[in-house]
């Protein structure tokens, strides 16, 4: 049976992981390659590097970061955050990423999804959707969640899938950073609407939140960042708990 995937997100700025990383035994707690390797050993299923760099100089450093991480781990690696064009995607993939995640760029130019899917295969083209509930509608936001659009998440996810996206990375802006749990209603609505896998993101605060999003939320995968930072055993503990609940995982 296909396992539910647990994905670790590394928020990287200027080549360093930001957000509270608190591992003991790491020479440099902020080094993305060391952290990725650590997660890999703990049994994480995939790693996402999210580039939160604001400067052009920092963006150029991204390829070096991706390459350093890709040298250390032999599991799927996705790059998102700074992918604005086919060239950006090519740079990330040439550096060793398997998949790129498009967000604002895909909404501005939906043909980019098809371009990347044709060049690298659909499995390499993830469309990231940041959504927020507004008057009972889950609306898509762009530019790191700062700008509202009039697109609905379910409808945009369908279009992205039709255009060749291989997966949807769905982040709940309402839940992001709250540790109150994933938005299962939003995730289930999108997951039921598209034939492709949906990765839930935003709100993970406890291990139970993952089992909720895999059952009630119909998620195919779940992504989190800080929850994995605080304990060496978080990934394994999480997977053992899920397996005890009958949810298929890779252990």
């Amino acid at each position, binding site marked *: *049976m*296909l*396992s*539910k*995937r647990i994905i670790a997100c590394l928020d990287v700025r200027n080549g360093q992981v930001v957000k509270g990383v608190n591992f003991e035994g790491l020479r440099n707690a902020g080094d993305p390659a060391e952290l990725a390797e650590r997660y*890999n050993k703990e049994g994480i*299923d995939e790693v996402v590097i999210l580039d939160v760099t604001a400067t052009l100089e920092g963006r150029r450093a991204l390829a070096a970061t991706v390459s350093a991480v*890709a*040298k250390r781990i*032999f*599991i*799927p690696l996705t790059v998102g955050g700074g992918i604005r064009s086919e060239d950006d995607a090519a740079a990330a*993939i*040439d*550096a*060793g990423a*398997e998949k790129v995640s498009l967000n604002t760029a895909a909404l501005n130019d939906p043909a980019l999804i098809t371009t990347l899917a044709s060049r*690298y*295969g*659909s*499995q*390499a083209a993830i469309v990231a959707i940041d959504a927020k509930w507004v008057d009972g509608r889950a609306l898509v936001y762009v530019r790191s969640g700062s700008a509202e659009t009039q697109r609905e998440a379910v409808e945009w996810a369908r279009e992205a899938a039709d255009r060749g996206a*291989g*997966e949807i990375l769905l982040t709940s802006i309402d839940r992001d950073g709250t540790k109150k749990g994933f938005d299962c209603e939003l995730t289930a609505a999108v*997951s*039921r609407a598209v*034939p*492709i*896998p949906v990765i839930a993101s935003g709100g993970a605060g406890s291990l139970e939140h993952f089992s909720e999003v895999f059952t009630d939320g*119909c998620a*195919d*995968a779940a992504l989190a960042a800080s929850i994995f930072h605080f304990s060496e055993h978080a990934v394994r503990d999480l997977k053992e708990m899920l397996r005890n609940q009958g949810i298929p995982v*890779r252990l």
Partner: protein
Amino acid sequence: MIALVDYGAGNLTSVRKALAAVGADVQTPQRPADLDTVEAVIVPGVGNFARTAALDREWRDAILGVVERGRPLLGICVGLQWLFEGSTEAPGCEGLALMPGQCQLLKTEWPNKVPHVGWNELEFPRASRLFDGIRNRSQVYFTHSYAAPVTDEAIAVTTHVVPFASAVERGHVFGVQFHPEKSGEIGLRVLTNFLNAL
């Protein structure tokens, strides 16, 4: 030297990196004649089966020549599918036909989606060189929509709604539907086992 055939079906960075990690000397042949002296050939590939059309008669003959010389061939993902007669994904696009049967679209049955993306189990109907030292029901990483039928050549079977051949072996011709370069330690062991078959 091992030839990694690049015919434009996806990016080969990860495959190269994983092969380097297990100590393989890998090169990408520029023309079919480059295959005349290789120790083994690997045909990777992601995306549409139609991409294999880029492997024209000359390339096909050169790859078959490697097999005839008794050297191992490994197909990865679409590369495994290409070992069969063809795929309903691209009717009229012929496979190598080293294995009998056609590849078909996997079935969607909620909550099982297609493409089949993620980690799934290998079940071994029999022992094989490729999975030497690997535990039955080990998990590996898949990403594909089409799959090969389970025939006598299947050395691993995986189920996603229906069972399909997740690895095949016939003589020294091997194929894996999953991505060994993305399957952690298990994947690297599969590549090492392939090198040991040289």
